[in-house]
């Protein structure tokens, strides 16, 4: 019974994973983006031969090195947690997680580790072109490493390319390319790395603005702003584009998440896109859940339908349609999905009984059913619904999804404006006269970090109650261990990561104050 699951354990396990993932993501995106910025700067140095560009490259490389070193291996803790706190999940996902993570480990270790050594130790020891190639390989390697973990995460959002084996209680990959080119994986990879490029560009822009405010290193600061603003503007536009394509994909594969982040309860044609709004509880309910109403909203009429289907006539599903079903639109009710999930679960129970009495004929028959495409598409795909207590349990936290999405989007447009203004003032040679803008650029450094974390909050909280969309609920996935141990490690991680973060910030500030070596 789902009521028997210790919610304290589930909540602490989730909190622990969220804490480590959030801290891990403070280190990763700067590595993804700054590596490319450095590669661009070094390319200019190699092509022009001007020593100032080498000095500039080495300065940003120092900050890259500090971030890389402090952040390296923080992701391994997430893998520890999979084995200890989420053992049923880890077993259930089988080799679908194992293969991408193994490739990620090999890439991260061999490609990054080897060429990072050349990047830092190789100045004046290897040829200019070999050094430049190493820098580019570090950038490509870092981003390819991210690809594999994002492929694994995308599978959790949209499980494809696998078949469930009742003998082992594991999913087995049957089509690697379907897993790799999962539409969620493609969108997620492009959206995530471009957000890393954006973050690094804002980092370079903000620190360079600080030098201009202090009337130091003007040449370095202006050249850095030029590179960062161009790369940042390109990245911010790419983030907006990939965000749009991600939303279209979500509307198809995770429609409840899509409806939740727009707080859309009633499906309709000509649906408006909410630009900003504030939610409150209403008296209406879906089951035992309060429906949220808007206190106010600013909306672009019809635009959500246009975004989703290309025209205003497109019907966009609301949360009520997705929970209660809508036969006209071909939507199954959650209760029907629960019945189908229960049927799949009953077959698994049947399989277990057949195995215990060694009824080989029945075992083979059941195995065939689990391999049957119609059974997979009509029943097994709803396996997770068997663990829901009530249909409304399929609804994620609407305010969290709504606010995290909208704040992220608002910040995204702010970044486009900041990079465009930086370029405008730079080309008019009036950057130093607009000190207010330099202050804004400086204080904008944390904002892409916040936007990135909000994106992950939306991705993970918006998927609830699932750990694997429709197949496995979070409550099923958690390991039944002592909640006290999870609380202890939560506190340990909070302390360790906070110390690491403050150490990184203090070493970075020291190096920024020192500035580039002459």
């Amino acid at each position, binding site marked *: *019974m*789902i009521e*028997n*699951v210790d919610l304290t354990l589930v909540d602490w396990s989730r909190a622990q994973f969220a804490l480590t993932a959030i801290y891990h993501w403070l280190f990763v995106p700067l590595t993804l983006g700054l590596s490319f910025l450095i590669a661009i700067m070094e390319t200019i140095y190699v092509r022009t031969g001007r020593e100032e560009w080498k000095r500039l490259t080495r300065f940003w490389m*120092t900050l890259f*090195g*500090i971030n890389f*070193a*402090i952040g*390296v*291996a923080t992701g*391994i*803790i997430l893998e*520890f*947690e999979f*084995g*200890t706190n989420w*053992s*049923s999940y*880890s*077993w*259930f996902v089988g080799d679908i997680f194992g293969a991408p993570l193994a490739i990620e480990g090999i890439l991260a270790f061999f490609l990054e580790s080897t060429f990072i*050594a050349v990047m*830092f*130790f*190789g100045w004046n*020891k290897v040829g200019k072109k070999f050094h430049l190639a190493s820098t580019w390989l570090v950038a490509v390697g870092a981003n390819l490493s991210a690809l594999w973990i994002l492929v694994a995460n995308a599978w959790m959002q949209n499980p494809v390319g696998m078949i469930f084996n*009742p*003998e*082992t*209680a*594991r999913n087995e990959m049957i089509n690697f390319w379907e897993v790799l080119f999962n539409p969620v994986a493609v969108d997620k990879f492009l959206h995530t790395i471009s957000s890393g490029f954006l973050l690094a560009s804002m980092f370079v822009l903000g620190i360079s603005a600080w030098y201009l405010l202090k009337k130091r290193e003007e040449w370095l600061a202006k050249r850095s702003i030029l590179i960062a603003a161009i790369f940042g503007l390109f990245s911010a536009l790419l983030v907006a584009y990939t965000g749009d394509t991600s939303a279209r994909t979500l509307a198809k594969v995770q429609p409840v998440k899509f409806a939740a982040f727009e707080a859309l309860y009633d499906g309709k044609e000509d649906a408006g896109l909410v630009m900003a709004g504030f939610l409150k509880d209403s008296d209406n309910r879906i089951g035992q859940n309060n429906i949220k109403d808007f206190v106010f909203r600013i909306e672009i009429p019809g635009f959500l339908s246009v975004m989703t289907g290309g025209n205003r006539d497109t019907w966009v599903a609301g949360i009520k349609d997705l929970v209660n079903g809508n036969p006209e639109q071909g939507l199954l009710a959650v209760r029907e999905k*629960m019945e189908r999930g*229960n049927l799949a*679960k009953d077959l*698994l*129970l049947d399989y*277990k009984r057949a195995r215990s009495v060694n009824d080989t004929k029945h075992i083979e028959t059941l195995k065939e059913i689990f391999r049957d495409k119609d059974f997979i598409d009509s029943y097994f795909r709803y*396996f997770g619904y*068997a*663990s*829901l*207590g009530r249909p409304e349990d399929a609804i994620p936290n609407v305010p969290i999804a709504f606010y995290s999405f909208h704040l992220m989007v608002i910040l995204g447009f702010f970044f486009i404006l900041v990079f465009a203004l930086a370029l405008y003032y730079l080309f008019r040679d009036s950057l130093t006269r607009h000190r207010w803008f330099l202050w804004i650029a400086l204080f904008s450094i944390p904002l892409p970090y916040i936007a990135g974390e909000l994106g992950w909050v939306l991705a993970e909280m918006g998927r609830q109650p699932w750990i694997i969309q429709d197949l*496995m*609920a979070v*409550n*099923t996935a958690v*390991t039944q*261990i002592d909640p006290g*141990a999870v609380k*202890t*490690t939560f506190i*340990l991680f909070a302390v*360790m990561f906070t110390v*690491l973060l403050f*150490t990184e910030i203090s*070493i970075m500030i*020291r*190096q920024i104050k020192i500035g580039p070596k002459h």
Partner: protein
Amino acid sequence: MKSVFSFVTRIFLFYYDGFSNMSWWGKRVWIIILIKLFIMFAILKVFFFPDFLSKKYDNDTQRSEYVMDQLLNSSNEHD
């Protein structure tokens, strides 16, 4: 054979020289990396993060039995 030895020596000297002439921040971050890895692998992994299924069960059959029970027992009022 001689050229292989020479290549290995050059790589060794490359790293040796790199680590010997490391800057202030480089030395600091290497200390942090080593402390962090020690905490993660010698303390957290050993004492707090055993692989639950590997530790509790001897073979994959038992592990799959446990997971199957988890999948079957986490059902709703249908039971």
